[in-house]
């Protein structure tokens, strides 16, 4: 299955992926409407280690501990991707307590949010990868 992978030596730390993610998942028709004057809450986070940067998003683990731990059954695996049923999730944050990579977070409106590989929005493929100017994140089979 195709996943998002990181080439940290290519990352410029520009954080474009964070903005593209927030836009892609906003449901808005333009980036300006989606992001203007708002604190963004993307599903990908750029971290820093000295002069190295890298972007972290859900690993879509093969045996995902978040899915096994979800108290409501809101998390499930759909064709290999770990997805949230926003109507089932009650925001208990048990999944936040168990994700080893810190890739699931409180969302707006009571449910959690995480990377769903843009399969659930109008982009259809990861917007973070598409917009990365330096191929520091890629969407491929490994």
């Amino acid at each position, binding site marked *: 299955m195709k*996943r998002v*992978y990181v080439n*940290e030596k290519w990352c410029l730390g520009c954080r474009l992926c964070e903005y593209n993610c927030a836009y892609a998942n906003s449901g808005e028709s333009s980036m300006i409407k989606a992001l203007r004057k708002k604190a963004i809450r993307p599903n990908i986070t750029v*971290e820093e280690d000295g002069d190295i940067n890298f972007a972290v998003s859900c690993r879509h683990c093969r045996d995902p501990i978040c899915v096994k731990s979800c*108290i409501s059954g809101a998390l499930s695996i759909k064709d290999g991707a770990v997805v949230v049923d926003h109507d089932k999730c009650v925001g*208990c*944050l048990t999944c936040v307590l168990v994700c*080893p990579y*810190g890739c699931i977070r409180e969302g707006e409106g009571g449910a959690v949010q995480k990377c769903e590989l843009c399969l659930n929005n109008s982009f259809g493929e990861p917007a973070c990868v598409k917009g990365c100017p330096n191929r520091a994140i890629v969407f491929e089979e490994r």
Partner: protein
Amino acid sequence: MKQYLIIGNGAAAVGAIEGIRSVDKNGEITVISRENHHVYARPLISYYLEGKTDLKHILYRPSDFYEKNSVNVLYGEEAVSVDPDGKTVALKSGKKLGYDSLCVAAGSAPFVPPTEGLGSVPSVHSFMTLDDAETLKSSLTPDSRVLIVGAGLIGLKCAEGILGLCKEITVCDLAPRVLSSILDSDCAAIMQTHLEKMGIKFLLGDTVEKFDGSTAHMKSGCKVGFDVLVMAVGVRANISLVKEIGGECGRGISVNEKMQTTLSDIYAAGDCTESFDITSGTRRVMAIMPLAYMQGHCAGVNMAGGTESIENALPMNSIGFAGLHCLTAGSYDGECYEERFEDGIKRLYVKDNLLNGFILIGKIDRAGIYTSLIRNRTPLDTVDFELLKKFPALAPFGRTYRSEKLGGEV
């Protein structure tokens, strides 16, 4: 064809079903379910009363779950005894079922301490099942005064659930603080202040000496008038089916890392068991949903002839009330690192170069990174812990870890 029998129909049973089916697609699976419901998410009963979920979304697995997994569920049936020699289980209805492999996933039952005059109270409730929630809901009016005995997880979740459905709620507990099984007094005080702001009243370090109809006479001498009483003092693991036939039990049914009891072909999983906690080094009952599912899955795989084991179990909890979340894990034993902020706290407990436990209130982002340090027993001198303790992140794990986790399949 192998015959699998599961007693109970909660998260552990679902784990067992999914575990069995990951190995054996054809064996016959039968579930004995005392409750007359398709498997639902037990922790959601308070959210149901609050209107945050409904009877459709409360289902832990989709409505075609049993059909898709070819499971035969016997609703409204109760197992009363197990014959380990003849390999049969007797039901209350008189039926007898045979098995090749049995999983006891019977959960726990509310413990109601004998209290003088309890029989004179007109409206007494437990808060364990969907039916309990329905009955409680139907006994509440906007004028009801509710007394909840027990300020633990269940009592407080119940309080949150019914806050909008009644006039006032008083919670009492013998312990001097709320959530006493997972919080020390400083941390509990933060949660209590928040709960009080929500409108819940507390009588802590106090207990009901006797009931007299709709009045509770407290040990402290004060009297509490109420219309509806909820007893949420605690729960006890349902161990009797295994204990009666000589299976080893402590407070829960003893299981090993494969979820085997001490009796052959009998497994157990979930809230009815006790197992090894890596953070305290002791065997204990860890009654939480994630572990119930994982233990069930582990039992199921082994029942079907596969191999799975759980060697890194730890207690953990995520509980929140009206936006304030409290995430805890492990044991609070070791040197404590603390940060305090408005409406919150962070406490990490370090022992022998390992993270052994934590309490996070308020700021909880990326908490799972800490949990994974505990679970994986990561030596703290192999990461930049000075950085990590301030910010849970992957940078402090170094390049090798990152290229493995972010550059490959995990």
